[in-house]
């Protein structure tokens, strides 16, 4: 057994808080890029969100996009360079709030890209406001008494939402809150990249991820929150796998 830093990841210390899920997912994406040998033809998009500094960590070309627009930017890139591998890495605010429209239409067009979607039920970077995926009753800085279904509506379930779109190739929801989940998550991410290599169209992996800081929990509590609360509302599994 050997375990080391993938070459697709630069040897840098991240700016993420202790216990943040972003770091885990970064590694998984990098490992997949390594394993598929595509680092030199991969272009990633950085979102606006805690992962905005993605470009400081990934050892491949990166374009940083306006908030919510990575699917549109990726569309532009992929159409110009159809043989390159384009992935977007987006938070729940980025993908499911301001970028809802871009997400749905890129997905429906079946753009041959891969989307890694970090659902941490919060706006991490801006300091903990409600995200579209915030859970009912969850306290955030803009839902200080907990998200209320009557005024804010229920959390949006992205895999379920996208699954009705005929253009979408692959949807899976995973988590990174246990080592086992992490191993499964990697498989899903790999599949989402392989799909692109094989030209199957839009693939998205939703990752339930911890934000201890803005949840105001310790990393351990945050892991428990994912395992005990989030997985209930956001069931893990494959939501679409078009052959």
């Amino acid at each position, binding site marked *: 057994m050997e375990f080391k830093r993938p070459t697709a990841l630069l040897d840098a210390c991240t700016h993420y808080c202790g216990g943040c899920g972003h770091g885990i997912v970064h590694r998984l994406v990098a490992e997949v890029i390594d394993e598929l040998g595509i*680092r*030199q*033809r*991969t*272009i990633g998009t*950085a979102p606006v969100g805690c992962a*905005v*500094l993605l*470009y400081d960590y*990934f*050892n*491949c*070309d*990166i*374009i*940083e*996009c*306006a908030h919510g*627009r990575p699917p*549109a*930017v*990726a*569309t*532009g*890139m*992929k*159409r*110009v*360079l159809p043989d*390159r*591998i384009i992935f977007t890495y987006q938070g729940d605010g980025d993908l499911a709030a301001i970028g809802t*429209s*871009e997400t*749905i*239409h890129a997905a429906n067009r079946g753009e041959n890209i891969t989307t890694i979607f970090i659902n941490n039920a919060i706006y991490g970077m801006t300091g903990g406001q409600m995200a579209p995926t915030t859970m009912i009753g969850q306290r955030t800085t803009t839902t200080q008494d907990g998200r209320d279904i009557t005024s804010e509506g229920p959390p949006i379930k992205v895999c379920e939402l996208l699954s009705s779109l005929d253009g979408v190739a692959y949807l899976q929801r995973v988590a990174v809150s246990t080592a086992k989940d992490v191993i499964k998550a990697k498989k899903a991410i790999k599949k989402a990249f392989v799909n692109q290599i094989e030209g199957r169209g839009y693939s998205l992996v939703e990752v339930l991820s911890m934000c201890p800081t803005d949840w105001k929990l310790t990393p351990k509590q945050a892991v428990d929150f994912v395992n005990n609360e989030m997985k209930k509302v956001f069931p893990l599994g494959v939501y679409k796998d078009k052959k």
Partner: protein
Amino acid sequence: MSSQGKILLKGNEVMSEAAIQAGCRFFAGYPITPQNEVPEYMSKRMPQVGGTFIQAESEIAAINMIFGASAAGARCMTSSSSPGISLKQEGISYIAAAQLPCVIANMQRGGPGLGNIRASQADYFQAVKGGGHGDYRLIVFAPSTLPELYKLTMNAFDYADYYRNPVMILGDGILGQMAEPVEILPYEPIVELPEKDFVLDGCKGRKPRVLKTLFLRPSMALVRHNDLLQASYKKITAELKLHEETETDDAELVIAAYGITARIAKGAVKIARQNGMKVGLIRPITLWPFPDEPFKRAARTADRFLVVEMSGGQFIEDVKLASECKKPVEFLGSGGGWYPTPDNIFEKIQTIYETEALVD
């Protein structure tokens, strides 16, 4: 087709074909009158030349697709009209900040709000001062005839690449909708084109590249990036001012107008001259950088300016600044789809002559 090889095309088609000729191979847009012929034309022509046409789900998606396509190395373009251009402002600010070349056309219509679909020039400030956030500049071309639209559109792609700066074609509903005979001349680069060393196409054989507009660390990083942008703007300002002058040499009254309005004003100059009035015209072809020298010159020789624009008064500010407020500036204009004719410009000239002793 005529014997001279000219064909009758609408302005929107002229611009689209010029883009294709200049090697534009990616177009993303969203329908809006009066520029619908652009996406329509592109949807047909792009596949023929191996390019991509995308009808985006919105203007915002379109401008961000351009962001991606330009970063991927394509000559690319989007077009829209006033409300749609407002929606693109964030994206334009990003593109300018990232110094990505691209061409953006605004076939202005009546505003504000939904307004109407008559032509207008009321997006001048937005185009020239920057409707998006931050200190950035677009190179802005204002063609006044279809042959010029053809030529400037081609040039736009070259200057965009040369300066690594987005270029806006600031047209209007008339320019887009009118049809005129145009000769489809082959494309010739107007400047020597630099290598695109910013392109993201995978890091094979080179170090990974990052294209970004965020400059957090150190705290002055963004100031330095702004300095870089300002240096580029300075260079463009020094090199690219374009204008046309008509009978300004001995003019007592100099009309300032751009785009389609300038063309109409030329008619008025003719009438005025026929009536023995010494009237001239300065027509900026680039609205940014603004050709201030001719105005400075005219401010020395002429007695007065007359600004004609299809807006409530925007371009007038640059005329004042360029002429250093040295001479009085009269105004003829209105927003909301008002069009001047040579006749009513001439009427205005007459009024000015009547109420002011121009030569004292």
